[in-house]
């Protein structure tokens, strides 16, 4: 499998109808300009198709934070999410990068834990009855 990851400032991406059209076919792509305004988008392309994306910003206490990660359901478990996160880590301007997911999202939690992310804790009341579990990775701190 060849996955090419493009790193694009969100403000630039939203002005590219062709790229946005490909992303709209993926889960969750429905963001306001305000949500995207100072984020960067990582897009995974395979054979000209967008098969996944991640969105990150440096708004989390001034640290890199991947606030959205999505992969085409038909193309999961093939390393797309890992490739997206590794690209985000290379982009991250802070010494550590964070991400999060609902406690109920076992596949995402297994993924994060399998590629060197450490659980940082939980924040309650974001989604009622389903705490948000935060993860942190300090690149270079582990062999992964």
């Amino acid at each position, binding site marked *: 499998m060849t996955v090419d990851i493009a790193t694009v400032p969100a403000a630039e991406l939203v002005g590219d109808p062709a790229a946005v059209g490909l992303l709209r076919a993926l889960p969750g792509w429905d963001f306001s300009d*305000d*949500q995207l*305004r*100072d984020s960067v988008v990582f897009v995974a392309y395979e054979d000209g198709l967008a098969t996944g994306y991640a969105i990150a*910003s*440096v*708004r*989390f*206490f*001034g*640290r890199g934070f991947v*606030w959205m990660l999505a992969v085409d359901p038909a193309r999961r478990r093939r390393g797309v999410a890992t490739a997206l996160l590794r690209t985000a880590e290379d982009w991250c301007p*802070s010494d*550590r990068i964070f991400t*999060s997911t609902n406690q109920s999202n076992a596949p995402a939690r297994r993924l994060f834990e399998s590629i060197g992310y*450490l659980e*940082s*804790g*939980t*924040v*309650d*009341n*974001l989604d009622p009855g389903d*705490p*948000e579990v*935060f993860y*942190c990775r*300090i690149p270079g701190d582990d062999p992964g």
Partner: protein
Amino acid sequence: MEIRQAHESDIEALPAMRRYIQEETPRHRAFIERVLPLGDMHIVLIDGEFAGSVITDNHLRGRGFVWLLWVESDYRRQGIATALMRHAEKLASPPRLFTSTQSSNTASQRLFESFGYERSGQLEKMDETNPELFYSKAVDDSAEVTDAS
């Protein structure tokens, strides 16, 4: 007391604000310099002088978050933090506004509790030594209406 959105030109015009930013940690200083042009920093002016600031947005998983709250030492215990938090509550998207502080900062914890915020989890690895304690409070669309009445 005037609370308004801060602009980049304020750094030049308000010496106390410039000093506050210069004295912040490098990471917080970079954060302030990034969000200031976006309009996410709001300042309190008393007789035209910088007395404090709050940085807030709706970017913690789409929820309102107060990232940095600051009151100049000469202006403490005068209700400025309260005014800044109320301002953030008006700007926050319903249903909740979140904030956090280090576990060592008991003064901030007492302040948030007195404003009706409840503990909402904690994260490690934010800081080398202290966990970050999270707080949240319900906010609704009527906050502004109630305030004006």
